[in-house]
Structure formats: C-alpha cells, structure tokens
C-alpha cells in the first residue's frame, strides 16, 4: 500500500502483486522458504565472480600474458550462464513464492505469469501433495483506480484460493 502504480502496465501490476505475496502468506500462517532463490543467487554470483576474476587478471597482467586462464574463465562463464538460464527456465520456472505452513507443515509454491496487454494475473498454486490450482485474477478486483493495491481484497482472494485447493485435496 505504499505507492500507486501504473495499472495499465501489466508487468508493473504483476511485479507489485508478486512482491506482496510473502506478506499475505505470512498473515495466513505461512513461513517463506528460500531454497530456489538461494540456489539462483549462488549460481548468479559465481557468474559475477568469474567475470570479476577475468577483469582483474586482464587489468593486472595484460591480455597476452594470461590467455590460457582467460580461455578457461570464458568457458566457465559460458557454462555457468547456460546453467543459470536452464535453472530459470526449467527449475525455477516462474516460481515467485515458496512457503511452509507453521501449523500443519504443508508446503506450497506459487507460480505467476501474465500475457502482455491482458488485464489478468495468472496464478498457479500447488502444494507438496501434487495438487495444484490454476486461476486467473482480474486485476481491477484488487487495484483501485488511482493504482493502489487493496491488500485486504488480495488477502481474501488468496485465502479463498487456499481453501479451494484444500477442498480439492479432500475430494
């Protein structure tokens, strides 16, 4: 509820909804887990470290002195970049939230996406038992006209989704 956003830009809308998820799930007794984010950060920063090493070597010794090392570093960089790309595309996919229920121990994860120029927030909620729920949220239901996110409405909507998933489980 901090600042208004441009509700006509679906990327901004999706981003601000994504960012509000930890807070809302927190109120629903979920504790965020950071496994995927941490893995991504480790791969990402090793890429940065490889590049920095290459840069420092080049500045310190000059190109011609360290060609074998640079070849190795560039190959490393290339391989790590492919791993990073693979991780983002096939492992993380578009997971924006992972959490564990503090009471029941149930694990959930949330993937979100959007289609350019369509006013929907695609929301995939799944739990550790392999059940998942795929819903679309019309964004005008949770944003008011000046562009403020109505956190309470979004909270209720998510609560409903959790119950639906729960009901599904009991079928």
């Amino acid at each position, binding site marked *: 509820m901090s600042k208004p956003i441009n509700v006509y830009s679906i990327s901004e809308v999706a981003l601000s909804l994504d960012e509000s998820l*930890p807070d809302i799930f927190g109120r629903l007794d979920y504790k965020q887990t950071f496994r995927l984010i941490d893995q991504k*950060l480790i791969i990402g*920063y090793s890429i940065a470290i490889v*590049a*920095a090493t290459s840069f420092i070597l080049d500045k310190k010794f*000059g190109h011609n002195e360290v060609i074998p090392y*640079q*070849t190795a*570093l560039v190959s490393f*960089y290339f391989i790590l970049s492919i791993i990073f790309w693979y991780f983002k595309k096939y492992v993380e996919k578009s997971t924006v939230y992972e959490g564990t229920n503090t009471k029941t121990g149930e694990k959930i994860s949330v993937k979100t996406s959007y289609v350019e120029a369509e006013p929907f927030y695609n929301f995939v909620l799944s739990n550790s038992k392999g059940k998942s729920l795929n819903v679309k949220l019309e964004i005008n239901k949770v944003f008011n006209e000046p562009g403020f996110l109505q956190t309470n409405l979004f909270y209720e909507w998510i609560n409903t989704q959790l119950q639906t998933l729960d009901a599904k489980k009991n079928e």
Partner: protein
Amino acid sequence: MNLRLELTKLLNLCFVFSSAYMFWQGLSLVANTHSPIVVVLSGSMEPAFQRGDILFLWNRNQASNVGDIVVYEVDGKQIPIVHRVLREHHSANFEKQYLLTKGDNNAANDISLYANKKIYLNKQKDIVGTVKGYFPQLGYVTIWVSENKYAKFALLGLLALSSLVGGE
C-alpha cells in the same frame, strides 16, 4: 529478509557489466588480440577512416599483406596507430615478417613514428590486429566518454539506473 531482494537486484546490475565485459573478453580470445574493436582517433587514414569510426580487428593471420590496414603499438606510446602496410618482407617459412606502414593521408611513411630508430615493424611483436570490418561514427560515444571526465560517471550511472529501474 529483504536482503535476498536486494541481492537479486544487485545481481541484475552485475549481469549488465559482466555480460558486456565477458563479451569483450570472448571476442579478444577469438580474434587473438587485446583490442578486438578500436575507435579511430586521428585523421591520418582519411578519407577511409574518420575520427570516431569503429574498426573490427583480427589477429590470427600468420602474415600481413601489402595494403592491409593494421593497428600497431609503439613501445612507450599509449595510443595505438591505424595505418596501411606499404611494404612487407617475410622469411619463406613465415617465421619473421617486417613491415613498413604509412597513413593514407600522410605524405611520408611511418619511420619517424617507430621506436628506437627502427625502420620496420615486427609483425609478431608490434601488430595488434588487421582491420577486417568497419562501422562509421558510432565510436564518438567512447571518445566523448574518455575525453570528458564527468561523462564516464554519467554513463555508468545511467547503465546502473536503467538496470535497477527497468524490469522485464
């Protein structure tokens, strides 16, 4: 908790610089030269090259041909020179090659530019690369950045800002 968010943002910034730098480094290794792309600084090759033009270099050739435009470095001078090969003398097995160069727009050859009273360049030692490709004028950005002390920071700041602000 927000540390991870900040780290992710910082990572995006790192990627902007590291990908640009590693692209350059990769190009250096492929072309076998420390400067695969250079910007023309002087008018000595006019009208072919003007100040600010971008040249793409290649340094995997065993020997230079007469007429090749080469970039060479002189001991003790910072700025590399882009001139045309006027004469070449090489041993039959290409082990050694001596070159005499001249700027198209200069009246005389480059002997007065060479270090230590030499009258030839050594292909293996002095040549940074041979010009293979040309793109006009775009290099003025780097001339502007290197000659204006605030421009460097402005450009870096702009890059940083755009990576922080611009989402997907």
